[in-house]
């Protein structure tokens, strides 16, 4: 079977201010099929954001192998990784990371700017799909948290990515809105034939996914830290 994402022996460590080297991610193996939706359970400090950033090419691992859509990510130059990220990945950040000076529509267009190109019609369609057709000209500060999150979802799907990474996408929402948001993310991903890799610590979110992974099991570093008396923040 050909996978959309294959990870082998992925290790990432950081040097703490006191000079101690701490391994945050140590994932021997992980695979994701095209259009598959996977939820990863991870407690705070378990290295889930680092794991997603490594997949996105935002962070460079110490060693390991990441194959994304047939591309050996670590063998690519930085600009090629940037290009691959722009064309293949969508990223819904926990804090949404919307650009404050830009409207909802412009934030989605910014997502397109570095990908295949600006597609105004598609950008409007996505915002319409997430229920924000009447908020195109609103800036993030003029939108509710839930609306901001929907802009972030629309932006993540702007370039018709094959994989959407979602980092605690419902972390800032109440239970009711969290469920709605999650249903929306999954629906939109499905409509766009995008795989979804979501990390969360919320059991109600995880319960919606057929395939669930526990980062404590997946990430040997997290398991080691869980066993240790005190752990570094990551």
């Amino acid at each position, binding site marked *: 079977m050909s996978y959309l994402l294959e990870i082998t022996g992925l290790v990432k460590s950081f040097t703490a201010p006191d000079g101690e080297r701490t391994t945050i991610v140590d994932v021997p193996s992980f695979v994701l099929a095209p259009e598959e939706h996977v939820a990863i359970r*991870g407690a*705070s*400090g*378990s*290295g*889930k*954001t*680092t794991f997603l*950033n490594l997949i*996105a090419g*935002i*962070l460079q691992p110490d060693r390991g192998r990441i194959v994304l859509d047939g591309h050996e990510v670590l063998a690519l130059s*930085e*600009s090629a990784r*940037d*290009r691959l*990220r*722009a*064309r293949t990945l969508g*990223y819904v*950040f*926990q*804090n949404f*990371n*919307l*650009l404050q*000076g*830009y409207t909802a*529509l*412009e934030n989605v*267009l*910014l*997502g397109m*700017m*570095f*990908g295949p190109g*600006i597609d*105004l019609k598609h950008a409007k369609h996505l915002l319409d799909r997430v229920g924000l057709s009447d908020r195109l000209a609103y800036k993030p500060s003029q939108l509710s948290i839930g609306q901001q999150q929907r802009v972030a979802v629309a*932006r993540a799907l702007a*370039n018709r990515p094959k994989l959407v990474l979602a*980092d*605690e996408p419902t972390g800032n929402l109440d239970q009711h809105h969290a469920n709605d948001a999650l249903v929306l993310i999954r629906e939109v991903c499905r409509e766009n034939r995008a795989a979804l890799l979501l990390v969360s610590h919320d059991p109600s979110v995880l319960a919606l996914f057929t395939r669930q992974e526990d980062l404590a099991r997946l990430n040997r570093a997290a398991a080691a830290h869980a066993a240790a008396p005190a752990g570094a*923040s*990551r």
Partner: protein
Amino acid sequence: MMGFGLMALVRRSLRQHLLSTVVTVVSVGLAAGLTMSVFAINHQTYEAFTGGSPGFDAVLGARGSQLQLVLNTVFHLETSPGNIPWSMYKQIAANPRVLVAIPYAVGDNYKGYRIVGTTPDIFTKFQYRAGRYFGVEAGGRFFETSDAHEAVLGNYVASKLGVRVGDTITPYHGLQYSESQKHNDQFKVVGILKQTNSPSDRVVWIPIEGIYRMSGHVLRGTGQVYRPEEGQDIPEESKEVSAVMLKFKSASTGFILDQQINRQGKVATLAWPIAKVMAELFDRIGWVNRILAMVAYLVVVVAAGSILASIYNTMNERRREFAILRALGARRGTVFSTIVLESTTITFLGALVGYLIYGAIFTTAYYIVRAQTGVVLDALKLDPALWLTPIAMVALGALSGLVPAFKAYRTDVASNLTPIS
């Protein structure tokens, strides 16, 4: 929303930091405007003063400074170095190598504007610009030698003093206007010259006989004092002139007369060629221009520094923005280019403002130079400084953007995409 690209990012950033943008654009504009003004006005002034008067090749006057002679007769500035006998005028006018010889007698003013006593040849033989002769406004005429008390006013004098044809004017002795120095004579204004945009616009022209016969004037052509009497011809040997304006038939005449008058003679000075004499003046005061240029360069450097500082100061608050853009797939080079484009845009806008400032400075200089000298600067002349300065400023602006651009280039994506868990 069309054309959403790097420029949109730049536009948004400039708008978000509007105050800083405006201050920087204005400071760049001041630098560009000042630099363009210093060089363009300097070039134009140099050309206006050294381009000389095509109607004349040389000036013959009393022994002394050639520069003083030229300033006094061509530009109607400065005092006259003295007089030469009428015979000298007649002698040089009779020289077959001389095409035009027009005598000037100066030393009086009308409310601060020079009065020049001369012959009607000034109207018919003198070209104030190549192929252009004096003309009179409708209703007027040139003066006639039969009446020594007629006057023709330069256009600027007439408009400034509100004098019209038919009015009478009373001269004042000396070149500086002083009410106490009023002569008793009255001159009837018979014509107003059409505007020439030359120093001649600031002159009151009267027959040379009018100068001789003006109350209180004495002539010393023979070395003895002669007081002209009413109704009595003035003996030619008593007459004097302040200068003789000369046009030669060929350039070689200047060499010959220069030898005869300046090197072998001892009584007169031939200021020739006029452009060279004026160029020497500019060489002498060249240090002023060099200081002005240095000031302009310093202002440019300060402006470049302000671009660097204004963009650099926004870098901290924009690190997250760059990190988000990078996470969306923007390359380091794209982020770098955005900052360089931003600094370039600031200088481009500054250069546009610079043209406005240049226009204001040039207009002020135009009126001052015209009022003081009669020389008119050409507002439409495209001086190289007018395109070189903006290009250099934009290039410098791009350079100024390199430091903050490099900082943006090095933005660490992951650490600026908070929070990490």
